[in-house]
């Protein structure tokens, strides 16, 4: 628990302008994307919420905060753009929330050697916009680039998004990180030990600065094809991934239909496949021929339509949220070769719900599916049921040699199933770097199990529709005469 003395010391570190204990402020720092996790579920998880929020501007300030927190056993939750839907930035054990967004400067742009040094709190869009003036671009960047920070994408793994199929995940582009360990010690990593902190979700240290690769701005060309057949569409995606496109994604029929209901104008087909390529004029020409061949079974759209969809890529994922108005997002990473089967299985898992799938380009022949499930948090019982789906998605991903895309809070309970024995190794690594477990407690390797009553309740909610459906299905097979007989006895009018 944070006490008055702690606040005074933290104020000394960051100054009174960059610290808050105001109730409404603390509430905002106890929520993330979606802001629709039912309060009951957060209570069941035992979330205490932020007790104090600080906005450091330098690595030294972060170091001083951590050193003090470590000595006094105060939990720390680090926050970037807060644009992830897995509850990764929720302060489970209370304590200090460190908002990194003030560390948002570009320190170095080295065009010749192709790298930039940036504060971890800069948003990807701001970095991309600034690099344009130097004739440069970033490689991998997230679908929430307007809000997501460089540090946040690194901390959450950065394995899917625009640029990933061509340049690899964000980890492939990190040359060095400045990291503050839980004790307050500042380290500078090399490309190899940077991997330790990539995807560690704020549990091993706080990334305060990053040196990432950048690339020369090249010509772009964009394509959009509609496929009437899921088989043809998924096959095209698999082949397209071998061309190392800059952008590779799809929207499924459900997603397209929901977009149209929200006022957009898409054709409603099984899949809309979007491809973007960059390179020299010759490279583009060569790839153009191949893309046309691969997508021969699809219905091509004019380039301006494809480009428009590409430009809109940061917004489209949330464009139909108003129809919910609440949204529950599940993300899994699966090999492209199983995509058709995975989509079929998702349809079975989500029977009776309203949902759509958007994919994000990934590397190594895989794809990340972002499954958007609509609901209405004001119908609390029904909405709570959707949160029990995370286990189903983890199992589904595992069935096809895939995995969940990110752990955060919601997938932490599935960690054993996801990592098996690897989980013990991860726990050892975490405790060796953070003996007191003050960094982002309750997440990833040290999950918080929701209260037993909530689990029971969620189980019941999951089984009730199934039981009803079972009874109705069974009744279909009872001969009508028998039914009349049965009701006749009850009614007492048998003839």
């Amino acid at each position, binding site marked *: 628990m944070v006490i008055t003395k702690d606040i005074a010391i933290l104020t000394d570190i960051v100054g009174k302008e960059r610290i808050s204990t105001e109730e409404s402020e603390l509430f*905002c720092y106890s929520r993330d994307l979606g802001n629709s996790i039912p309060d009951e579920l957060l209570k069941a998880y035992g979330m205490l919420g932020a007790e104090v*929020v600080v906005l450091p501007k330098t690595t030294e300030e972060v170091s001083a905060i951590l050193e003090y927190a470590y000595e006094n056993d105060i939990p720390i939750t680090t926050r970037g753009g807060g644009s992830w839907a897995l509850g990764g930035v929720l302060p489970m054990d209370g304590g200090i929330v460190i908002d990194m967004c003030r560390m948002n400067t570009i320190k170095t742009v080295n065009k010749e050697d192709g790298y930039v040094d940036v504060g971890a709190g800069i948003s990807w869009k701001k970095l991309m916009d600034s690099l344009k003036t130097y004739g440069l671009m970033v490689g991998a960047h997230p679908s929430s680039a307007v809000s997501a920070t460089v540090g946040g994408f690194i901390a959450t793994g950065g394995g899917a998004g625009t640029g990933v199929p061509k340049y690899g995940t964000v980890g492939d582009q990190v040359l060095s990180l400045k990291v503050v360990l839980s004790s307050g010690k500042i380290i500078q990593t090399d490309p190899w030990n940077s991997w330790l902190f990539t995807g560690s979700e704020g549990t091993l240290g706080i990334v305060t600065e990053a040196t990432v690769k950048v690339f020369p701005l090249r010509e772009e060309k964009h394509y959009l094809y509609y496929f009437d057949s899921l088989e043809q569409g998924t096959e095209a995606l698999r082949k397209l991934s071998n061309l190392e496109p800059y952008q590779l994604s799809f929207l499924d029929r459900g997603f397209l239909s929901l977009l149209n209901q929200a006022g957009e104008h898409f054709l409603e087909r099984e899949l809309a496949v979007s491809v973007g390529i960059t390179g020299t004029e010759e490279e583009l020409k060569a790839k153009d021929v191949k893309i046309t061949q691969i997508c021969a079974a699809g219905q091509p759209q004019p380039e301006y339509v494809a480009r428009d969809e590409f430009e809109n890529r940061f917004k489209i994922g949330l464009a139909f949220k108003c129809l919910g108005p609440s949204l529950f997002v599940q993300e899994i990473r699966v090999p492209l070769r199983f995509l058709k089967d995975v989509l079929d299985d998702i349809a079975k898992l989500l029977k009776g719900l309203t949902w759509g799938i958007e994919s994000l380009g990934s590397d190594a022949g895989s794809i990340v599916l972002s499954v958007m499930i609509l609901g209405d948090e004001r119908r609390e019982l029904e909405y709570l049921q959707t949160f029990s789906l995370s286990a189903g998605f983890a199992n589904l991903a595992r069935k096809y040699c895939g995995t969940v895309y990110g752990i955060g809070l919601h997938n932490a309970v599935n960690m054993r199933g996801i990592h098996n024995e690897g989980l013990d190794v991860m726990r050892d690594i975490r405790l060796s770097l953070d003996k007191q477990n003050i960094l982002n407690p309750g997440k990833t390797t040290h999950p918080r199990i929701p209260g037993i009553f909530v689990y029971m309740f969620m189980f019941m909610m999951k089984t009730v529709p199934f039981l009803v459906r079972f009874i109705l299905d069974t009744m279909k097979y009872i001969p009508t005469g028998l039914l009349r007989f049965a009701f006749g006895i009850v009614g007492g009018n048998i003839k």
Partner: protein
Amino acid sequence: MTEQEIIEQVYTCASCGYCRFGCPVYNEIGFESLTVRGRMQILKKILEGKMELTKPIIESIYMCAQCENCNIRCPTGVDFVKISEALRETLLKNRLAPEVQLMLTENLARDSNPFREPLEERGAWLPSDYPQCKKSENLYFVGCTGSYSLNRIPKSIMRILDNIGFEYTLLGSEERCCGSPILRAGDRETATKTIERNVEKFKSLGVKTIITSCAGCHKTFLHDYPSEFNFVHYTQLFTKLINEGVLVFEKELNEKVIYFDGCDLGRHSGIYEEPREILRAIPGVELIEFQYNREEAECCGGPILGANAELARKIAATRVQEAIDKGATFLVTACPTCLLNFKEGARTAGIQLQMQDLPLLLPKYVKVMKKVQTAGAVKDE
């Protein structure tokens, strides 16, 4: 916006945080409760009866510059500016608005200007023999800032209009506030009365076209007045006159000029190119741009001068510093509020940069002014 519409928008907000990207207040202070995302999260809890409406929450509603930068980023179509207007209206009705806002509203209702200046002195800046309130199809609506504070702006515009023989009229002491600050403060009742009074006045003089030099007035005319009038900003009129060869610039302005897209003229009225065309017509001008310009331009902070002047100046200083970093030697605005705030911001921060509002720049550089042939030359075609 109705209560039900507000509730739907509160639940539609995805809390993605895109609204923070170009938010002048958030980018200066950095706390989430000052973003649309934060305000919507708090509002949801208040609507659900799980949070009390406290003083900091009320203050945060007035700390919104209503610049609408968040609207262009929002992927779910949340319009917080409309919500904030409705919230301010409710707070005002219940006398829960901050004291300074309550005073401002009372002053506006009494004086019809936000500067607490006497109503009867509105036309004092005009020579006593200057014809006012004559019948004309064209009215130059000066606005509160031009009437009470920056008289040089309307004088510059009039100098050009009078020199080319352009036929128009002024309301002088008969002019009233357009209603903009009254609406932003949430006093819809007074605003409606003011608008009705103005419309009646325009009609009584046979006015068809209203020329404005205040960006706030222009925005309000476009959005809150009947569409039977033709609203023309002076930048639109002067661009037309330049293209027709009526206005010719000969004297050189050898500066790297950066034009600032104020929110009311830019994002709210869609006027981006005309001020740039005028600047390009001046020989020697090398026009450069802010990183985020036109629709994406980031607010100067002027709209929150009443709620937090210190913060407004800090935001202004950040923009002036960006202009310097971009290599600008001259900052030009087309909104008097932006100019005043930039000047104060730069002075407070100790930053030096030449800056001027566009109309004040023009008479100095116009060499040839031909007479216009027809009185109807300003109408949009």
